[in-house]
């Protein structure tokens, strides 16, 4: 029997090893053991989460594609494919390469589905910038995203960045990519047709990233560990050539299946393609292009060298495919063929080094993990507003919030990303959602990412619902109809019941919110073990969402446009401060309940704003989120840097002034319109039983709110724009 040290080193448990022996009915070879370890790791096989992920709804307003490596929707003749994926652990270890290869990996998932990547977004989380290592991480991650994305020519059009102590020691880098193709050109990730050749295309295989998914992504960080050798190295130029070559190859019509060699490299791509096609596969590692001498079979099977893919081609067309890759100076070689025995057989140097049932590899164990509500939470949820003193200077509070890194302007980041290449970006970064035109149609696509992890920490079920609701609200504010969801579920160690309780409740929150808003979850990713000696991260179920505009010219932006426009608020401000940025920044507390959310009201707000934008009644629309009404109004005044404009606002009476200004009540959207359209919008609101309050009027150089706040927009802008510059 294999020594326990060996399989434990590979991340396998005693029970898992026993199961492998039972499946094989013999002692596994070293290569086989390595292959099981990567395929059954949480990163590839989702053994601890799969049971819950099955609950996600898959139906929505558009036909959905829930695919192998990514998912999407069909809009008329177009398939829109998108997915979000984490690259947290590699980024914590080596931020530039970690983030770069995260971008590269998710983009490969898109073009291996046959779609041309048209946009990227990313959702990032770091510890406070007061710690030098967190600054180093932010700088490195942004550098990695720009290095890779800019070179590829895929615009990075949006995303979010938050800072919280819980991410010190374990940052989050969630990359999302969106691609488009004709619906008939979608490619599948499967091998079919006994005797058809299996081709290896792209870059050569080296020792980088060996065991990245089992060693890095499936364990938490402990003190002083050296993990750098398991981080992959990215080469965006090669990937750019690979995109072009792959799309050219797919256009030949000779490709039957294609899969990225991402996590678990050749092992995952070969086993899962064969399993998906219900066939076997034989591959010969002697034919794999290597960049290093003397590599062992297990190293070749586990390598996570970037920019490589596995393709199943119609027999007789190998040469054509080879020629396409040669044109782009990339490898394109036959390394095996489809067999009829449902086994994955791997040969190297004349010997069979692995022979495993593909199903056993691809469908690993499923665990039912125990979950338990953390004991501390009831205490944390207690918040008596009577103990929170009202501020004496509201101007100062607003300026402090605008300078808080989570709320501050992120131009320093997004101006380093090419967000315009491909000439589709109609709404540039800095509004509620990015809007892209879909060339060749009149339609547009809006995209956003969202998650307030502090809410999820206080109430995972509601926090996850809010993430879905807010993402949809952002899209609606841009004039889009929310259409479909991808998620990236970032949590701590699932073997600890309190962490798993958070996971389970967040999943249920997403499930219920998506059902109510009629949104399918078409793709996603789970990242567990996000903890360091300092503890787990806040539960962070990042939501990526796309929406459709029937007429891209009818998009809307958040900034105030014309002097004299009427400003009003759709939705109700409640007396709640739990989990707010105000409570944290001004009073140093993370406490209370997450804001209340009624999905029926949420739907009504979104319906009214979507319809009113479509009818041309609305000049600006902006979601009220972190920092509350006051911060949202300030953003409306200053986010169009060349056309900043003030506003004069009165508050709706009835609640504490700090809750009215900085409370984060959900389902609220600030809108502006010409005077003559006011009653039309009010009518729509009444029809939908929605609270609608006139707040004031656009104009002047100052933002004036009741007799509490009066500041020049120029000063707000300077504070907001200078907070993040490294």
């Amino acid at each position: 029997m294999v020594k326990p040290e060996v399989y434990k080193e590979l991340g396998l448990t005693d029970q898992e090893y026993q199961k492998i022996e039972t499946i094989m009915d013999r002692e596994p070879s070293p290569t086989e053991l390595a292959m099981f370890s990567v395929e059954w790791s949480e990163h590839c096989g989702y053994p601890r989460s799969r049971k819950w992920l099955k609950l996600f709804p898959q139906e929505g307003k558009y036909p959905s594609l829930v695919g192998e490596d990514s998912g999407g929707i069909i809009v008329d003749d177009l398939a829109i494919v998108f997915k979000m994926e984490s690259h947290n652990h590699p980024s914590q270890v080596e931020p530039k390469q970690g983030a770069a290869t995260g971008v590269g990996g998710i983009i490969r998932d898109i073009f291996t589905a046959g779609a041309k990547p048209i946009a990227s977004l990313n959702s990032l989380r770091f510890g406070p910038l007061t710690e030098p290592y967190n600054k180093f991480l932010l700088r490195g991650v942004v550098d990695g995203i720009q290095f890779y994305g800019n070179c590829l020519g895929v615009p990075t059009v949006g995303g979010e960045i938050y800072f919280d102590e819980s991410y010190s020691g374990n940052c989050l880098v969630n990359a999302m990519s969106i691609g488009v193709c004709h619906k008939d050109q979608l490619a599948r990730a499967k091998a079919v047709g006994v005797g058809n050749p299996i081709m290896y295309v792209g870059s050569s295989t080296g020792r980088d990233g060996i065991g990245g998914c089992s060693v890095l992504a499936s364990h938490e960080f402990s003190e002083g560990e050296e993990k750098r050798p398991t981080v992959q190295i990215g080469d965006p130029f090669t990937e750019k050539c690979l995109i072009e070559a792959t799309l050219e190859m797919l256009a030949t019509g000779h490709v039957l299946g294609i899969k990225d060699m991402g996590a678990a490299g050749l092992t995952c791509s070969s086993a899962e393609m064969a399993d998906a096609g219900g066939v076997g596969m034989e591959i010969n590692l002697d034919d794999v292009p290597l960049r290093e001498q003397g590599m062992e079979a297990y190293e070749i099977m586990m390598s996570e060298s970037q920019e490589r893919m596995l393709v199943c081609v119609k027999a007789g067309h190998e040469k054509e495919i080879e020629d396409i890759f040669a044109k782009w100076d990339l490898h394109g070689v036959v390394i095996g063929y489809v067999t009829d025995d449902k086994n994955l057989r791997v040969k190297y140097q004349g010997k069979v080094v692995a022979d495993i049932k593909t199903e056993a590899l691809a469908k690993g164990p499923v665990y039912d993990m125990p979950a338990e509500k953390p004991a501390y939470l009831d205490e944390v949820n207690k918040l008596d507003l009577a103990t929170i003193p009202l501020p004496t200077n509201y101007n100062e509070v607003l300026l402090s919030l605008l300078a808080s890194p989570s709320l501050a302007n992120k131009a320093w980041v997004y101006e380093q990303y090419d967000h315009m290449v491909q000439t589709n970006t109609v709404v540039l970064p800095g509004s509620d959602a990015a809007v892209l035109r879909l060339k060749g149609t009149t339609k547009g696509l809006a995209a956003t990412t969202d998650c307030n992890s502090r809410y999820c920490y206080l109430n995972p079920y509601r926090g996850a619902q809010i993430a879905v609701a807010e993402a949809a609200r952002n899209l609606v504010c841009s004039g889009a109809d929310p259409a479909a969801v991808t998620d990236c579920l970032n949590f701590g160690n699932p073997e600890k019941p309190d962490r798993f309780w958070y996971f389970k409740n967040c999943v249920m929150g997403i499930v219920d919110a998506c059902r109510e808003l009629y949104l399918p979850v078409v793709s996603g990713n789970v990242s567990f073990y996000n903890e360091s000696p300092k503890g787990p991260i806040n539960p962070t179920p990042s939501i990526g969402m796309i929406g459709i505009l029937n007429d891209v010219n009818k998009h809307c932006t958040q900034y105030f446009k014309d002097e004299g426009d009427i400003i009003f608020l759709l939705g109700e401000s409640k007396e709640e401060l739990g989990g707010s940025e105000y409570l944290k920044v001004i009073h140093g507390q993370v406490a209370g309940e997450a804001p209340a959310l009624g999905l029926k009201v949420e739907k009504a707000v979104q319906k009214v704003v979507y319809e009113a934008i479509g009818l041309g009644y609305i000049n600006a629309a902006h979601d009220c989120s972190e920092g509350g009404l006051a911060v949202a109004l300030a953003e409306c005044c200053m986010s169009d840097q060349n056309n900043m404009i003030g506003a004069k606002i009165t508050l709706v009476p009835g609640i504490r002034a700090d809750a009215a200004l900085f409370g984060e009540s959900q389902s609220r959207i600030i809108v502006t319109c010409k005077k003559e359209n006011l009653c039309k919008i009010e009518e729509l609101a009444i029809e939908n039983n929605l609270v609608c309050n006139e707040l004031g009027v656009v104009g002047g150089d100052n933002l004036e709110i009741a007799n509490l706040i009066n500041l020049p927009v120029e000063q707000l802008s300077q504070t907001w724009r200078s907070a993040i510059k490294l």
Partner: protein
Amino acid sequence: MKFGVVVFPGSNCDQDCFHVVDKVLKQPVEFIWHKTTKLDDYDCLIIPGGFSYGDSLRCGAIARFSPIMEAVIGFANKGGLVIGICNGFQVLLEAGLLPGAMLRNKDLHFICKFVDLKVETTETPFSSQYKKGQVVSIPIAHNEGNYYIDDQGLAELKKNNQIVFTYTNNPNGAVADIAGIVNKNRNILGMMPHPERCSEDALGGSDGRIIWESIVKWLNQKSIKS
């Protein structure tokens, strides 16, 4: 009239330029793979932006040795119109078709945003439809757009009225705020900003379109003359 868009491995604004010529100008246009050596059919060559050869060694330094570049030099020497945008400008500098060199941006960051440019001369085939002194808004997206030329070279550029665009608020440290220049014969333009990204109103501005329209007008007049 026929446009050609040169494609190197790593070019990534090739399709954007193609789109503008095809869909906005509605003029004939073809992609030209970098291994092509005959360019007799074309009236205007576009060397697009992107990361030819992944910016290895130095931006444009490897593309400069692509088989097509001999032909591009020949085409330009015969008076053909060549416009190099961003990485295309860098390639033209490396090939010696335009004077000067590119350094990294002064802040050492990639910068992508709309910037204001002043039109310094309308006496080129590329800028004739602007007004001299007009301020236009065209986006930049580069890491190495800090144009450098020595004093003597700068004096030469000024003397010959070769500076076409300058930044009104220099974003990258370029000498004399230079954003775009032509050669002495005025048939080769290199510019860091991307006119193809603002040639349609849908994209929030169409100031870049005037460059394309100037080219079309110039080529039309040329064909009438000949």
